[in-house]
């Protein structure tokens, strides 16, 4: 209120208002005064009073009590006053719906005004008043305004349809406004077209299947024409809309690209980014051998670089997007490393992003420059930035082998600076370098050991301990060093405790004579004095391992470790694809799908890149559907939070409605095979990857189902399907008989046989444990190694009574699919560890994939059709199922029992075609077509899936189910 008065003072108005005492009165008095002024006869006074009301409203005071008085001022020919009253109305109408109705008449009247500015103002404001009663009155004026002769009114009315739809969607449909809006796409005025497109796009978002935008080559052509003529904002609306179009073939795709490329020179960065989005998307469809494809790639680099000379906030948006583009198409910017060098005055958020991109672009060709830069950065002041720079040096070493030596020496230089956090960060990355290049740089260990005392962060301590344990034989005083850590064992974090335990055991296995005492000390600390179950378990396991079979212990604990991989922070390919479709938007800034931060239905649709249709390459890439550098199938790559994720300080809880996610929360030390990585199997965290702990837990990236947005297909094809006699009751899923998994002779008398079953949506592992030894077995526990589908025990192994000699116990272990994921060979392989009071035993078994077929795997017919077409033919696999004497109905019944759903059946020339769908627990869809010829016992099965490697296993299931 104070500044409302200043305002009046400044303008020298209202002698009474300048009275400072006036503002010390209570709120009640204030409202009262305003009321009087609002009802004043003097126009100027009225206007000033309304201004004061608006000022109070702005600072958050409740002035709703003045509603009738303000509305009374509405009927005025003073446009400025009118606008103020409208502003007030928009704010308070909802809280005073009955009184708001008083305003309707004026609105309706204004919509007929001669002045187009007033007509537009009325229709614009009415749409913002969210009162049902008013909405009803809005329809007629809106209808007129949509066809107004003045483009300014039409463009305002177009947006008003979107407003109305937000209030009452049904009303908009009933009144036929959507059709009128569609007509406006052909309007002669470019701005009307742009606003109509914006409104339609928004409405379409809440009707995923409505085909509302109805994009076809004709409308696309109209949009492209309007694109050249409308405002910068309109261009953005149109480009964003174009991006959702799926061209029919590569030629159409190319012609759109050609007409969009000029936008790359627009001064408005958002226009440029939206154009980049369209190009990145449509490029997918162009054959790579096309000349134009190369031209386009070249054209993309300069505008992206230019974005970096924009204001810092836009640079940030651009960099987050470039980060995605570089992952998707590294070739575009591979020569532009220098522009990502950090400037001294860049804001910290720009610096961190640039650093990320620098590492992605680092290659043998530019590594010298990159390293020189990184070294420079490591001396800056911002702690986060310095840490990240040090870490980046480590990542360079791992990524570019030729540079490893220089990186290590750079890191050593940095350690010499003795800056505490630099040293700690350097040690963490050196550990990773050791794991990538074993037996190469161990000469630096001595330098590392000098810094033992300055390490106060758990991660750095754990890394250092790991190094000491791993190279215990080369460090003379390894025992002293480790012993020094042991003193404060209980004050250490779990990470350090576990590492220390393992390191000392390693040391003992390497130098058994002098370290017996030490190992006993740590074992007792871990098992007796600790209440951390992980630590105790690991302690016990080592203890028993050492006491029963030291040779085996050596084999297990000191086994060779697999190398760690180069790039660990890549965005998982399906998510990357989706994010590419969202270039320029918030999703691309957060690196999260919109469903992760948008409430309600909006934006939850998953977008995908179009499949490549080019004729030029049919066999070049088997995984064309996935496209991009996907070395592994999408579902089995553990995704990990981007290094930066947590810096954004996002408060994004994973949405409850997302598809079951298959990612583990973190990727620990690369691959851990059972033989070597006992530790990891049992819940430890030995080893590590370059990004270990870097930004973990920040990114609850959900696995996009990637099917939700499959384009609807015209009804013409729909009638091909005919379910015929329908499907009968399911007969229940097939369970294979138990087989022996673990032989008694290999497991000190414990024999395990088992099978898998899916019962009512719950996966179970049925086990029979038989004691063929002479002594009683107790303390059973079970663990799985990471596997392709994240299977993990959902509860403990319930063996309640001790297992006496020659006794057999049957147990059923419920399994979940939320465990850590790692691709196995074969895909359905499961490595299991069972322990009892005698020892730990390992075996592996294979589960039928049908275990993972979920109950809601029945696909919508239309979606099935679209998806079938969408999956490239290279992903199709054909199999023969021989000797089945069932008719198609019985077969489909049987299959349904195992959650293989028949969606449609078609009979052509005595041949039954069954179309079936299956959904796996991780959201992968499998589509199948089964051909059954009457009288022929051999069925032909065609399976299509985006992850083609599952096909043979699905086939196995078919065979199993049908034959039993």
């Amino acid at each position, binding site marked *: 209120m104070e500044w409302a008065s200043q305002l009046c003072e400044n303008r020298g108005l209202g002698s009474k208002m300048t009275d400072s005492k006036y503002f010390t009165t209570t709120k009640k008095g204030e409202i009262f005064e305003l009321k009087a002024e609002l009802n004043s006869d003097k126009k100027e006074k009225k206007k000033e009073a309304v201004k004061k009301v608006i000022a109070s409203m702005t600072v958050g005071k409740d002035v709703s009590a003045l509603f009738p008085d303000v509305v009374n001022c509405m009927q005025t020919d003073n446009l400025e006053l009118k606008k103020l009253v409208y502003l007030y109305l928009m704010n308070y109408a909802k809280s005073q719906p009955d009184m708001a109705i008083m305003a309707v008449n004026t609105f309706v009247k204004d919509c007929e005004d001669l002045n187009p500015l007033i007509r537009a103002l009325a229709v614009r404001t009415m749409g913002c008043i969210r009162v049902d009663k008013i909405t009803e009155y809005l329809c007629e004026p809106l209808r007129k305004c949509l066809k107004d002769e003045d483009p300014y009114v039409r463009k305002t009315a177009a947006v008003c349809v979107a407003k109305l739809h937000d209030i009452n969607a049904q009303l908009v449909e009933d009144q036929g406004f959507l059709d009128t809006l569609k007509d406006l796409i052909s309007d002669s005025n470019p701005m009307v077209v742009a606003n109509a497109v*914006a409104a339609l796009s928004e409405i379409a978002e809440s009707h995923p299947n409505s085909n509302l935008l109805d994009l076809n080559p004709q409308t696309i052509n109209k949009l492209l024409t309007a694109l050249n003529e409308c405002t910068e904002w309109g261009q953005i609306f149109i480009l964003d809309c174009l991006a959702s179009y799926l061209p029919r073939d590569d030629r159409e795709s190319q012609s759109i690209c050609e007409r969009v490329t000029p936008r790359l020179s627009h001064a408005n960065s958002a226009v440029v980014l939206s154009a980049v989005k369209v190009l990145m998307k449509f490029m997918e469809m162009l054959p790579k051998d096309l000349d134009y494809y190369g031209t386009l790639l070249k054209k993309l680099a300069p505008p992206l670089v230019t974005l970096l000379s924009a204001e810092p906030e836009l640079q940030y948006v651009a960099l987050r997007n470039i980060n995605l583009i570089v992952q998707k198409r590294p070739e575009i910017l591979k020569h532009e490393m220098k522009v990502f060098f950090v400037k001294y005055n860049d804001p910290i958020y720009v610096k961190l992003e640039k650093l990320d991109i620098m590492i992605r672009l680092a290659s043998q060709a530019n590594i010298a420059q990159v390293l020189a830069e990184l070294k420079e950065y490591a001396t800056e002041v911002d702690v986060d930035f310095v840490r990240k720079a040090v870490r980046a040096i480590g990542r360079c070493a791992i990524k570019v082998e030729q540079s490893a030596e220089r990186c290590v020496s750079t890191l050593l230089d940095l350690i010499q600076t003795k800056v505490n956090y630099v040293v700690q960060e350097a040690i963490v990355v050196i550990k990773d370098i050791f794991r990538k290049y074993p037996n190469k740089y161990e000469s630096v260990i001595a330098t590392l050991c000098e810094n033992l005392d300055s390490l106060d962060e758990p991660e750095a301590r754990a890394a250092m301990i790991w190094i000491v344990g791993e190279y215990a034989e080369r460090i003379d005083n390894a025992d002293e060093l480790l012993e020094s850590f042991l003193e404060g064992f209980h004050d250490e974090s779990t990470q350090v405790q576990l590492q220390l335990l393992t390191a000392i055991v390693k040391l003992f296995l390497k130098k058994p004579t002098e370290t017996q005492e030490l190992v006993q000390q740590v074992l007792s600390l871990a098992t007796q004095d600790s209440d951390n179950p992980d630590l105790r378990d690991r302690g016990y396991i080592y203890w028993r391992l050492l006491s029963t079979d030291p040779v085996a212990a050596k084999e297990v604990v000191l086994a060779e470790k697999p190398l760690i991989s180069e790039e660990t922070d890549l965005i998982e390919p399906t998510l990357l694809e989706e994010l590419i479709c969202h270039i320029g938007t918030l999703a691309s800034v957060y690196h999260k799908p919109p469903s992760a931060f948008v409430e309600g239905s909006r934006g939850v649709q998953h977008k995908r890149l179009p499949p490549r249709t080019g004729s030029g390459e049919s066999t070049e890439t088997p995984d064309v559907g996935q496209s991009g550098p996907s070395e592994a199938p999408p579902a089995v790559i553990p995704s990990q939070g981007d290094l930066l994720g947590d810096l954004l300080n996002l408060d994004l809880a994973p949405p409850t409605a997302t598809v079951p996610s298959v990612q583990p929360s973190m990727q620990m030390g690369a691959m851990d095979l059972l033989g070597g990585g006992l530790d990891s199997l049992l819940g430890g965290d030995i080893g590590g990857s370059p990004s270990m702990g870097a930004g973990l837990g920040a990114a609850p990236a959900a696995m996009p189902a990637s099917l939700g947005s499959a384009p609807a297909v015209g009804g013409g094809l729909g009638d091909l399907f005919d379910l015929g006699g329908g499907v009968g009751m399911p007969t229940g899923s097939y369970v294979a008989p138990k087989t022996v998994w673990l032989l008694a002779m290999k497991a000190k008398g414990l024999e395990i046989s088992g099978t898998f079953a899916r019962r009512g949506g719950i996966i179970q592992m049925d086990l029979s444990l038989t004691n063929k030894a002479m002594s009683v077995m107790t303390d059973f526990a079970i663990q799985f190694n990471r596997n392709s589908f994240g299977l993990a025990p959902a509860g403990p192994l319930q063996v309640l009574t001790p297992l006496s000699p020659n006794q057999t116990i049957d147990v059923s272990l419920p399994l979940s699919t939320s465990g850590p994921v790692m691709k196995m060979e074969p895909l359905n392989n499961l490595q299991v560890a069972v322990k009892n009071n005698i020892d730990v035993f390992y075996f592996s078994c294979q589960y039928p994939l049908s275990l993972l077929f979920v109950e809601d795997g029945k696909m919508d017919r239309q979606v099935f059709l679209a998806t079938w077409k969408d999956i490239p033919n290279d992903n199709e696999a054909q199999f023969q199922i021989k000797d089945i004497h069932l008719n198609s109905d019985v077969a489909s019944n049987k299959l349904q029992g195992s959650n293989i759903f028949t969606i449609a059946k078609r009979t052509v020339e005595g041949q039954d075609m069954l179309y079936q769908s299956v959904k796996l627990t991780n959201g992968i869809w499998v589509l199948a077509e089964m051909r059954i010829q009457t009288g022929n016992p051999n069925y032909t099965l065609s399976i299509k899936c985006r992850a083609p490697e599952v096909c043979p296993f699905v086939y196995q299931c078919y065979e199993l189910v049908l034959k039993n």
Partner: protein
Amino acid sequence: MIGGLFIYNHKGEVLISRVYRDDIGRNAVDAFRVNVIHARQQVRSPVTNIARTSFFHVKRSNIWLAAVTKQNVNAAMVFEFLYKMCDVMTAYFGKISEENIKNNFVLIYELLDEILDFGYPQNSETGALKTFITQQGIKGQPQTKEEQSQITSQVTGQIGWRREGIKYRRNELFLDVLESVNLLMSPQGQVLSAHVSGRVVMKSYLSGMPECKFGMNDKIVIDKQGKGGTTDEPGKSELGGSGKQSIAIDDCTFHQCVRLSKFDSERSISFIPPDGEYELMRYRTTKDIILPFRVIPLVREVGRTKLEVKVVIKSNFKPSLLAQKIEVRIPTPLNTSGVQVICMKGKAKYKASENAIVWKIKRMAGMKESQISAEIELLPTNDKKKWARPPISMNFEVPFAPSGLKVRYLKVFESKLNYSDHDVIKWVRYIGRSGIYETRC
């Protein structure tokens, strides 16, 4: 789309609050204040997500502008809009300050109502806006029907940036080629990165709806013409540096008045300009840049308590040209206790508050050299952390374009009115300034 727009003062008090969408509540205003403006640590991102609501902010002096949304909006557009909003406000009432905003809050609400509808940006060209949103209240009432429809067709039209019927007694235009040259050089004198980002700013005072065509020594155009056999007379090198005839432009962007498709197909720059001052184009070059100055640093640590610094600067352009406003900034360690400086030219001062020696030279001709030496006394510290040695930075202004860009022509055609290209008085000026011009030491 944008759900709401708030403007705060430095204390976090809200000055303007306009909500466009129902999903944004009043609490959003407070959420931003508490979590961003009043946050303890430095801003780590211009986009903040608080309880599933995204906030975009920019700061102008000590005023915060924040756009709020709950949807997956086009983030680049939101920032572009915020900048545009700042431009519009500046065009209406000058500097963006708390006082100006308070004094013009009614105007700002009116503007916000016009340029953002349901969160969708609408025409935001000040040229058009000023025809119907004025500080004196709308002149709306006495307007004739023709005037009204002229306004609306301009606001929605293809040439939304210019109104019809502009008349000048004297048709005149000013072209400023403003370049900022950026350099990062290693202590050994190796160019780590160098680029010029330039702008062509035009002030046009032209009558009617003139059609303009702008030409410069763009390599692609010159080469094309060279092949065609119709070479323009070879441009004489009037400016500093080398006498190259054409320059390779890495990338350029244009004001929305420029016909982009024409540029894409023919590489010709044609447009109908807005009235008054505006930025016609921006460009970037990285090849064959004339670096106006070379900085040669020499830092020697003498024991733990003394540093000797010697810096030589060399001007590298035609001797007849003069560089101005030269400033060399030599950072000093935090534990500096005293500095003695000797310089051959200009004035040098140690500024303790800025931790730097600032050496200023008013003017310097081309192909000259100057030197400064300083002795820096340090307080002994037990701080293990080494001094980061920030780079030596330089500021200057030179009367030529370091990229080598030259304006070849700017032709004006106005068919309806009675003036030709020859009648237009044209002025061209080149100014090269230092951007981030740093040499590591």
